């Protein structure tokens, strides 16, 4: 007799189906539609609007890494992906996912605010890029950290969208019991957003750094030696964003200070580095909001 499918298996089945047609965020969708429908839109604007949407950014990288053969390393740069795929292909791809969102008419999220999720993702992206710069990363590799930060919580989208009632309980219990979100996800859904994120990144062939960042940003010590410094910086940016409370993706329970201290130590950094980072992050988010809101005003 076959065993009944486990909670995790049932969850995974629905998640796998959802991942294939995951819509872009409603926060960016108007600007995406405006940019992609305008034949004279600047390529810089196209690149920028995609780089502000974790789902679209992931989809563009998915396309480039699944279609192209013989690349020595996975492509993690949107700039390079746009050059390789061409503006039309990228616009068509972006439109197809923006339209999914429009058609659903319900917003990508049901439990916490999509705008808060977007702000948190962007905050982690900007912080990760800054930390990489401090660590001496080259200009182009800093963008890899930005993308990793932007995409790190992608695994929450299917959980949020596909299991809204259970996910509401996950958030409530995490908040009430002051326990990590991912622990409650595993208890109530059988799987956490890290595993879902890892699954997405694997399916989209995003490369080891991104796969590990999505899968282990709460446990960078479990990452292979090669990718650990990368994931540790992304984890640090995530904890820092939670400390600042710029946006939120539901991680409200953790005591962030000891985690940040530990991650700073692991990265060979100290608290001074974080002193001015908050202003930079806020400025980047404000600029992004202006960029996106211009379109709302037509």
């Amino acid at each position, binding site marked *: 007799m076959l065993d009944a499918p486990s909670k995790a298996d049932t969850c995974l089945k629905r998640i796998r189906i959802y991942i294939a047609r995951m819509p872009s965020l409603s926060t960016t969708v108007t600007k995406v539609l405006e940019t992609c429908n305008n034949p004279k839109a*600047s390529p810089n604007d196209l690149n920028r609007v995609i780089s502000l949407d974790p789902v679209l950014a992931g989809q563009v990288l998915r396309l480039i890494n699944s279609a192209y*053969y*013989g690349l020595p390393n996975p492509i993690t740069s949107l700039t390079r992906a746009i050059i390789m795929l061409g503006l039309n292909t990228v616009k068509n791809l972006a439109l197809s996912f923006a339209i999914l969102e429009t058609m659903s008419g319900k917003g990508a999220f049901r439990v916490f605010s999509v705008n808060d999720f977007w702000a948190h993702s962007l905050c982690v992206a900007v912080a990760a890029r800054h930390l990489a710069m401090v660590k001496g990363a080259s200009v182009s590799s800093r963008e890899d950290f930005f993308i990793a930060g932007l995409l790190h919580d992608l695994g929450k989208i299917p959980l949020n969208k596909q299991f809204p009632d259970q996910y509401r309980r996950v958030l409530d219990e995490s908040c009430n019991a002051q326990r990590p979100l991912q622990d409650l996800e595993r208890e109530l859904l059988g799987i956490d957003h890290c595993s879902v994120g890892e699954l997405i990144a694997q399916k989209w062939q995003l490369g080891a750094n991104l796969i590990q960042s999505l899968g282990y940003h709460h446990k960078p010590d479990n990452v292979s030696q090669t990718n650990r410094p990368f994931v540790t910086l992304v984890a640090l940016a995530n904890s820092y964003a939670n400390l600042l409370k710029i946006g939120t993706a539901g991680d409200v329970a953790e005591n962030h200070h000891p985690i940040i201290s530990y991650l700073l130590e692991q990265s060979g950094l100290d608290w001074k580095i974080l002193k001015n980072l908050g202003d930079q992050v806020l400025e980047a988010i404000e600029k992004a909001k202006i960029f996106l809101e211009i379109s709302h005003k037509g």
Partner: protein
Amino acid sequence: MNLKFWGVRGGIPTPGPQTVKFGGNTSCLELEFRETQRRIIIDAGSGIRQLGNRLMQNKTDKNCISADLFLTHTHLDHILGLPFFAPIYLPDTDLRIYGPVTCEEEPLEFVIGAQLSYRYFPVRQAELAANIEYLNLQEGHFDLGDGIKLVTKYLNHPLLCLGYRFEYRGKSICTAYDTEPFYNVFSTDTNDPSYDEAMAKEGELAAQIENSRIEDFIRDANILIYDAQYLQDEYETGRAGWGHASIEYAIETARRSQAETLILFHHDPMRTDSEIDELSDRFCQPKHTADTQVLFAREGMVIDI
């Protein structure tokens, strides 16, 4: 193997007195492997109609028509001849159609089949008698059997478009159309309000890398069939981004890649026979082309390789 050009024109069929010599049919090439009886067709532009008629004439009750059709991409000028390819109406025809998928991931059968619907054509795809198999292609290396190897490479066109390199007994034939040079699409003007230094620099680097990947793909080809729709000054006056290269760029690239013979292909629909003759005098002389032989593709031209 024999290479025959059944259609060499870009964009749209251009019949008329000014295209009699070089031909007005859109892209279609035939590669015939004499010993193995294998037949490879590249693209189903309007030229494929006459190829189909020739195959029908030579057909007997004992030998059915079998071919591998490789579509470079699904823009109309590369597929519009398929409904007029007579062998698709014979029940004993075996046709394998390969092509790149679109970013929307719709299957090739759906993309090609759209033109075989009543609103466009009196015969529906489901009514075709031939055995047709559709195979989606991406970049890669493939063994086609009978000693024929295939390498595919994405080019630079407003739709995902594949270049094909067929290798057989140490000889290679390579197609690189429709394509234009990769270039940095991002602003390099520091006064542009949307200027971004990192984006500008990476855009430059990415374009260089992609152009060198194309050159690696075509390197040392015995026959290189390259997009040459424009002259360089035409390309530079509003045609960048349309997905077609200039004659000058095609020649430079072929020489850098040490192609043995370059065949300039996908002629602009506006280009007349007399203009191509003049361009031949200007560009195809050995003093300009060094070790690479350069010629303009002409409908009906056959090359024995």
